[in-house]
């Protein structure tokens, strides 16, 4: 019994310890808030889990607090999967973060309608950001979000392998086929295909139909969603689906069993030479093989080289909660001015290996630099266009995945199935 009492006592002490440690934390924070009587606390909720991005967020905090001694910037980093849940819990509990990140324009519309987003139209930092990307953050003529970064979609390839076999960047489908045949003849898998994951699979057909269908008609997805256009009636979409299948023999042995991580590793160790994906692939592959030399070219879509376009999409956007307090808004304005400055974005470009929305003279990974500076006439900027919502996107990806998974492909069946699924959603 004595022993039991000792254990109970020890446990009780640890409880008191937990409370004491907490009290210490709370006291520290209270001291900061009351230091000058009017200290403002801003909270930045983000999901930047990558080491480079965390270093960038930390550098923003340090620079900001050093410049403005009456403001404290609390950083709350959560994992990407829980980000939306936590954000919505905080918003529903009147504990909104001061700034937080949202994805596409469709997200902005939803949060703006709910009255959560402040108008940033008069923020000075807008002058620093690529004007084309700013379109993505506009709702009803107001600037409610500002993109932090740009993503590029195209074909990422191993430059050394291409040089070894005397291959050039293909600009037409027949040139791409020749490249694939040469690689196969030399024992190299032409494409790394992370098709085990729907989101990673989607990047492959996406470059094709975006370059042709969406570039040709900015309302392409909107028309499909409201059913004024049917998949079966879109010759462009049909052609792109056939193009996807035309290259299936170059996807390697187990395309639908290959995860995104495995695909990066296959690229990094030279087993595969090309990957149709988003620009974050460059950092991912390089982390497995720092010596790899990665290049990028737009995915050819026809026999006309001018139709091959580098896709540029605005990435995460920073939004400000709609506070009425002018002091908080002013402090947030200063924070935005700092974040969207070339100096601050240098860390984002050079340490986090991202393509910042603020143009500047950065030492970036070569492939990223190439995308960022790709000529406008050979690029397709998706900023400000009406996108698919997540429901339509999920249905599209899943249906396509099922269609391409088998040993044969029936394009008519795919298009009819897509129409049936979109009809259901419309109803």
């Amino acid at each position, binding site marked *: 019994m004595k022993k039991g009492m000792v254990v109970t006592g020890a446990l009780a002490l640890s409880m008191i310890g*937990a409370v004491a440690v907490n009290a210490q934390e709370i006291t520290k924070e209270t001291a900061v808030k009351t230091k000058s009587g009017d200290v403002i606390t801003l909270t930045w909720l983000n999901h930047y*889990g*990558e080491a480079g991005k965390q270093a960038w967020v930390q550098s923003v905090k340090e620079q900001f607090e050093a410049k403005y001694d009456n403001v404290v910037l609390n950083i709350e980093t959560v994992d990407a999967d829980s980000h939306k849940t*936590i954000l919505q819990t905080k918003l529903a509990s009147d504990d909104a973060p001061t700034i937080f990140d949202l994805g596409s324009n469709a997200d902005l519309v939803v949060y703006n309608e709910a009255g959560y987003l402040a108008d940033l139209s008069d923020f000075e930092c807008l002058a620093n950001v690529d004007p084309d990307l700013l379109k993505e953050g506009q709702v009803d003529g107001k600037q409610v979000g500002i993109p932090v970064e740009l993503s590029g979609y195209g074909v990422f390839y191993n430059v050394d392998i291409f040089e070894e076999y005397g291959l050039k960047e293909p600009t037409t489908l027949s040139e791409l086929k020749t490249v694939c045949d040469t690689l196969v003849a030399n024992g190299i898998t032409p494409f790394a295909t992370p098709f085990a994951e729907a989101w990673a699979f989607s990047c492959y057909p996406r470059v094709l139909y975006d370059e042709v269908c969406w570039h040709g008609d900015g309302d392409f997805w909107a028309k499909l969603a409201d059913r004024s256009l049917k998949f079966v009636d879109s010759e462009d979409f049909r052609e792109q689906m056939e193009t996807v299948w035309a290259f299936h023999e170059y996807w390697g042995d187990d395309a639908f069993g290959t995860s995104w991580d495995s695909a990066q590793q296959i690229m990094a160790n030279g087993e595969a030479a090309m990957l149709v994906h988003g620009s974050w692939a460059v950092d991912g592959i390089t982390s497995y093989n720092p010596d790899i030399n990665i290049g990028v070219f737009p995915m050819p879509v026809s026999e006309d080289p001018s139709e091959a376009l580098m896709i540029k999409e605005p990435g995460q956007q920073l939004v400000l909660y709609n506070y009425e307090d002018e002091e908080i808004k002013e402090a947030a304005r200063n924070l935005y001015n700092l974040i969207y400055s070339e100096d601050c974005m240098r860390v984002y470009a050079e340490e986090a290996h991202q393509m910042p929305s603020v143009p500047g003279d950065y030492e970036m990974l070569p492939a990223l630099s190439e995308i960022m500076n790709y000529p406008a006439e050979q690029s397709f900027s998706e900023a400000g266009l009406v996108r698919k919502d997540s429901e339509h996107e999920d249905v599209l990806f899943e249906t396509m995945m099922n269609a391409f998974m088998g040993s044969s492909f029936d394009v008519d069946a795919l298009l009819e199935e897509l129409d049936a699924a979109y009809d259901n959603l419309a109803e």
Partner: protein
Amino acid sequence: MKKYRVELRKLPYFLLVLFAVLVFAMPVALAVLTSFKSKPDLAKSLIGFPDQIYLENYRGAIERSDFFHSILNTVMVVVPSVTLIVLCASMSGYAVARYYKESRILMLLDKVYLASLMIPFQILMIPVYKIYKTLNLLNTLHGMVFMLVGTSIAYSAFLYVGFVKSIPREIEESAYIDGCSEFKCYWLITFPLLKPISATVAALHMIWLWNDFNISVILLQKEAVRTITIKQFYFFGQYTADYGMAFAAAILSMIPVVLCFVFMQKYIVNGIVVGAVKS
């Protein structure tokens, strides 16, 4: 010769067990192996041995997750929680098991416990967050303790009820005859007899609470109070993951809970079986 034949008959069972052990041990072995691999080694082969032992993963994991501070936070949350769960649930289970026939409220409480097991935390999330914000319990370790205890009491009490019913009332009646009060009877007579189920409850909750993610991620959003499981996501970006460091951090954080399981596994099994079967 006879002995040899008996052993041969057991060979299929032995092979089956060996296969099961391999199946269950393989993921752990892979995790350990991965934690010692550099990223280029990982790119070469997932299951192969590394060219050289890469300890940088462990150094990076300790640094990036602020490991010792996070472990301290975890201990500060788990130890008091488990203590309170054992004390409160045993008292509650005792009361329900002994007096449910005499009290409608206790009978109802038994049902309430069962019903509450069906409610997932996601449903409680927003109300709990609001209440915690109002009471200034967000981002506090003791607030986290209250939440963990609150969400664990029902199942623990459920286990205790079954176990207490298996203890003969006559032992307590003797104590009452000797002048024991109700609380003393519970504390001095019954509680020591609950040792197997208490060990089960303590061990199970030690494991569960140590690994809790859902509640911690909502209630502990500041760096200073984050527990080790929340720090694991630091190795997973939106599109990239550092598996070497992630597994190194996971293995380090697993050690206390594995030790707990090794030392208490017989109680875990015994407690559940005894509590479930006897009435």
